[in-house]
């Protein structure tokens, strides 16, 4: 019993002495830090995803407090509103940016883009890309081993086993850009996020000639240029054999969708243009089948 009391006493006294020493040491060697850094860090989402270009939210908030001009800094996860409130708290002006969402631009699902060989090496898009084109004949399409899904910290990316393609959940996506960097085929693009997660984009990145695309994939852009001609807003440009829709200019009128002979222009959360007798896309699909 005696030993127990003695032990408790000794440790308590020792603890008290050390506490006093530590208190004075802390006073003496205190590091002066701007208290706003802590406040800003609390306002940031704390995802530590690196989407802003810094190692984590702490370094981002340090930069926000220290830099005079913060217009180059942007947290894609927090979004524009939070950036504005952080800027007003710091008495600075924030960059104006609309919400963005990651978009995977390949429509070559298993049924549209047949396998021409089989691969049994390391399950990684980067490895496959360093070796050859991948299991389909398209040199530009999604490989489907999920490097982007592994890079996503928000669980927004899944591989659909039925299509073999990557699917991005627009609600979970924070536009941090990790997947854009992870994709060796450069298929993922940050595009403007419309209300109700609507989207329209060319789901193909193949720069090959039309005949080559047709042979490899039934959903590819063959570079016919019909969509660019029909677009009333000049939002569609042709780069070689590939159409590209500029999301900033696009007004979601969907005229291009019905023009596309292969259905490479994809619309999300929208109906195709009404009052058309039958869309050209369906006809093309039927005649092929």
């Amino acid at each position, binding site marked *: 019993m005696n030993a127990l009391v003695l032990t408790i006493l000794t440790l308590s006294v020792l603890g008290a002495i050390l506490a006093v020493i530590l208190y004075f040491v802390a006073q003496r060697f205190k590091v002066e830090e701007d208290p706003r850094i802590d406040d800003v860090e609390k306002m940031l989402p704390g995802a530590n995803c690196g989407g802003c270009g810094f190692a984590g939210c702490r370094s981002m908030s340090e930069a926000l407090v220290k830099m005079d001009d913060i217009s180059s800094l942007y947290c894609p996860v927090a979004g524009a509103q939070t950036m504005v409130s952080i800027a007003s708290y710091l008495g600075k002006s924030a960059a104006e940016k609309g919400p963005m969402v990651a978009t995977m631009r390949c429509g070559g699902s298993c049924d549209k883009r047949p396998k021409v060989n089989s691969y*049994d090496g390391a399950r*990684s898009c980067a*490895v496959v890309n*360093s070796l*050859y084109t991948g299991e389909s004949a398209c040199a530009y399409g999604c490989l489907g081993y999920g490097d982007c899904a592994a890079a996503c910290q928000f669980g927004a990316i899944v591989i659909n086993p039925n299509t073999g393609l990557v699917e991005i959940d627009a609600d979970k996506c924070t536009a941090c850009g990790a997947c854009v960097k992870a994709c060796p085929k450069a298929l993922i693009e940050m595009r403007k996020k419309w209300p109700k997660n609507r989207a329209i984009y060319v789901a193909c990145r193949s720069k090959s000639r039309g005949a080559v695309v047709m042979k490899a994939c039934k959903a590819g852009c063959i570079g016919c240029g019909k969509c660019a001609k029909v677009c009333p807003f000049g939002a569609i440009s042709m780069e070689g054999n590939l159409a590209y829709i500029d999301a900033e200019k696009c007004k979601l009128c969907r005229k291009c969708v019905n023009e596309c002979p292969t259905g490479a222009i994809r619309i999300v959360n929208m109906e195709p243009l009404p009052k058309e007798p039958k869309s050209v896309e369906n006809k093309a699909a039927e005649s092929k089948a």
Partner: protein
Amino acid sequence: MRTFPIGGIHPSDNKKWSKDKAIEVMALPDEVAIPMIQHIGAPATPIVAKGDKVLTGQIIAQATGFVSANIHSPISGVVKAIDEFANGEGLYRQMIVIKREGDEWVESIDRSTELKRECKLSPADIISKIKDAGIVGMGGATFPTHVKLTVPDGQKAEILIINGVECEPYLTSDYRTMLERGEELLTGVEILMRALNVERAVIGVENNKPDAVAHLNDLIAKGNYRGIEVMALKTRYPQGGEKQLIAAVTGRQVPPPPALPISVGAVVCNASTSVAVYEAVQKNKPLIERVVTITGKQLKDTHNFLLRFGTPIKSVLDAAGGLPEGDVKVLNGGPMMGRSVVNLDAPVMKGCSGITVLSGCEASRGKELACIKCAKCVSACPMGLEPYLISKLSLRQLWDRAEEHKIMECIECGCCSYTCPSNLPLLDYIRIGKQTVMGNIRARAMKK
């Protein structure tokens, strides 16, 4: 018997399938596709246009810069297209397509078969002739030979090593070349010695080819080739690697990059390259054809073909009785270093020493298991690296640490993946790491 000091493996050499097949000249292809990148370095620039008539041996693409190589037409005919076509890996690369009409050669090319030994050209002239002929290392790495022979200021070549090792399983093209074109090879070695101004040349041959060693020794004694010796080396993969061969022959170790083999006074050339050098210098014949082994256990017929570049791989396989039934893996090269071909319309190129056909079950990989830290890969690595570690660092994208652990020293021989009891694709990840680290090193150099 000598060999390199560390690591290495001894896979079954499987040379028996094609080693006794004499070199046959394959029928001329009707149409060839000539890629503008068949070598390490910058792609060549086409100097012909669609519709032009070209002769066999005529230059059709010029080297772009110093580390690049000229490309010549392997057949005579009309240029049908200059566009991007899929190569063996399915990637689109610029190619010149030529449709054959007859077989007319450029006049300056000496097509006689008689041996022409005397060479009085100066080293600079020899190198310029080699450069004009578009010769690249034919062992597979396809490094432009004229660059190799241009010794940097302040360094001196002491020894020329001819790589007749052919350590890659299955392949026999160098072996047949040594047996059937030995005199041309030795004359080529003499020319290379003259170009480098060295007194000594060693032809390294593995001891699984004793007849090649005996044959070359015979020819050297008969033809009085001075300063050339044949060295039999203990069979071990990857003895044909440049650094491994230098270590085996001279006992010297090439320092880590950016040091080149010349820093230990050695220049290494492939045996087939040496024959090509002979033809270029003595016969004015550019590099338009090579010996290619077509082999595989399932093939009806194996061959050692002398064929023109640009011949579609498919027609070569057809000449060997076509593909066997079932799933097969077609390799451009041998099973260790070769790359799989997914597009059989792709052409044979300068670096293709063989086409190996493996059946699906021979080629399939085992199920990946966890690394058990047995360090078999460490014992097998001929560069003294720790493959399990650098592959993991690559997988975790810790590029700086991978660089510290000398990932750039890796020669991609595949000994680690071959030896791994857990079937881990070690080399696949290391290769990714090498590419990224190389990019980082370049970016740093640009900043400076």
